[in-house]
């Protein structure tokens, strides 16, 4: 894998990393729980056909400590939209997974002209009393790998410190990513996203790993039913919550097929 090009954008004094790689029409990616401490094979596969732009979300790796300035859900949505625009993604396709999927849905709902086609991979933010999502916060650290990936080693590989970093800062960066997710979603991951779903007019692909232990299957159908745009649900066999880590090839194919 070649490294992506890293640039930064400014969000109220916080430097936000933007990774860019590939050629062709631009497509954005908002990462899932844990963010992108490193470039991942899924984005390389997309970059073979598209210019992939992956800006960090506040507090996620590359996103500084910007989460500490965000107090409300509106603050988060506005920050995500500003990052999307500043990364040069206005009018482009957008893929969002998990935590980033919830924010991608909000940005697409509130600024319909901004997003061309939308791919939501198990987006967080919905909560149904009869079938609540799994509690992702009351967890021991060693439970996360199996919670988020069908093959826990895929999550461990994302979070494995590089050989040349021994300062402890890597671990702090990962803990900050968890904090950012908590700041946005605590305690129930219930952001009332369902209220904005009818505003989503874009053609939307909803993806769920068949072995997702966090996001119930029925939520994918609820999203498809409630958004205004044309939509389709795709279930990826052998994948858990973070489909991009478990099945990069299958997800890249689905995204490329859908966005054309």
């Amino acid at each position, binding site marked *: 894998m070649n490294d992506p090009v890293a640039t930064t954008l400014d969000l109220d004094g916080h430097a936000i990393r933007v990774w860019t790689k590939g050629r062709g029409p631009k497509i954005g990616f908002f990462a899932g729980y844990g963010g992108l401490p490193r470039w991942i094979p899924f984005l390389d596969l997309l970059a073979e056909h598209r210019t992939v732009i992956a800006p960090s979300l506040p507090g996620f790796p590359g996103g500084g400590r910007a*989460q*500490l300035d965000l*107090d409300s859900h509106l603050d988060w949505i506005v920050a995500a939209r500003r990052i999307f625009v500043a990364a040069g993604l206005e009018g482009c396709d957008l893929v969002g997974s998990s935590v980033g999927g919830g924010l991608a849905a909000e940005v697409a709902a509130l600024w319909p002209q901004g997003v061309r086609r939308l791919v939501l991979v198990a987006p967080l933010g919905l909560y149904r009393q009869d079938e609540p999502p799994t509690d992702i*916060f*009351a*967890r*021991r*650290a060693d*439970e996360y790998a199996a919670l988020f990936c069908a093959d826990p080693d895929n999550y461990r590989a994302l979070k494995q410190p590089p050989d040349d970093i021994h300062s*402890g800062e890597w*671990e*702090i960066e990962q*803990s*900050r990513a*968890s*904090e*950012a*997710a*908590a*700041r946005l979603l*605590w*305690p129930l991951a219930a952001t009332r996203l369902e209220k904005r779903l009818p505003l989503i007019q874009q053609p939307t692909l909803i993806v769920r790993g068949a072995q997702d232990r966090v996001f119930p299957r029925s939520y994918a159908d609820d999203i498809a039913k409630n958004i205004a745009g044309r939509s389709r649900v795709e279930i990826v066999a052998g994948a858990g919550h973070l489909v991009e880590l478990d099945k990069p090839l299958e997800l890249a194919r689905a995204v490329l097929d859908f966005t054309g």
Partner: protein
Amino acid sequence: MNFLWFHLMPYMDLPADFRQNNSSVWVDIDPALFNPERAHQMYNDYFDELEYAAELGFDAICVNEHHSNAYGLMPSPNLVAMALARRTKDVKICVLGNSIALYNPPTRVAEEFAMIDCVSGGRLIAGFPVGTPMDTCFAYSANPSQLRQRYHEAHDLIVKAWTADKPFAFNGRFTQQAHVNVWPRPIQKPHPPVWIPGGGSIETWEWCVQNDYVYCYLSYGGYKIAQGTMEGFWNVVEKHGKEKNPYRAGFLQFVGVAESRDEAMDLYTAPAEYFYGRCQHIDPRYAGPPGYTTEATQRAGLEGQVTRVADRSKRVRATQMKEIVDLGYVVVGDADDVVEQIHEVAKTLHVGQLMPLLHFGDMSKAATMRNTKLFAEKVMPKLKGLFGEYQDHWWPKPLDASRRAAARPLAPAAQ
């Protein structure tokens, strides 16, 4: 030095197989284990014990706040403090404290503390803990990433509410209140002394020192493992060029006094093993929510006290009396032995505000009262003069006794 008799008010009837059949004493403990009629008895015994400590000359009696917790039955310590304010005369009342980030608006804490200060004639110590992850983030669902920001804002609002001479509007990040105007207002001026119970968060040390507040390390791990934390605090005091006055610091220590060490082991083994075995059975899933431990504290290689307690539960943690005593969790012995050990606690940690925990676990009322009496009569007098060369600037300043109201004695028929 000062002696503050501290009660946790544990539920005393957790079953012997509690650890085996339950995941946690906190947050998701089984409601079926709670018998309200037994709790009626426990609460009333606990009030008797606190009042007895006041009678025996302890400088203060202490209560604290926990939620969904079987070792701490005081979701609102203010209710307890108010009852104590009516039934006691001179003893100081230390509420350690109210988790101020949890209350909306936090002005409620300013009001209730002001009420206690008025009713008690100015005997209140106002404690402001951030609160444990179990209490705040899980039982009360406070956002762990916002908890400290909310805490600092709540503190600023409460202090301003106590001291402002006119009603004001408060436009905070988290609290907006158009008419802040606390009635009643505290007797103590500018406000009751503020004490901060903390774990090992380094920002808390800085903040206490900058504000000249008392830092209280409420460890259940005893004095031997507390040295690193207290040294960290005193280093910050020195860094800021402030006096290394032992009255700036409080420390909680489990103590069991008897006529002999053997008798102490007989008396206190069961209650200590109840506490460390059943009451410290905390599911680690509730100990480390993301964002609770600040980056500075992570970087310093420290953790909050409760995280360590929970981590210990994964390893071999002391639940047997020999180890509990060897590690210093509980100080036991005859009076002279305890005097010597408490002297060592006070000197090594340099703490002038000592909070002996003389009831713990499922200790009976009779045993608690005996422990309290032995401590008051045979331990306290020998240590009272310690740190006499320092002035305590952090102690309540009540009305003069001649100006304080007394509760009307109850007529026999009403008793």
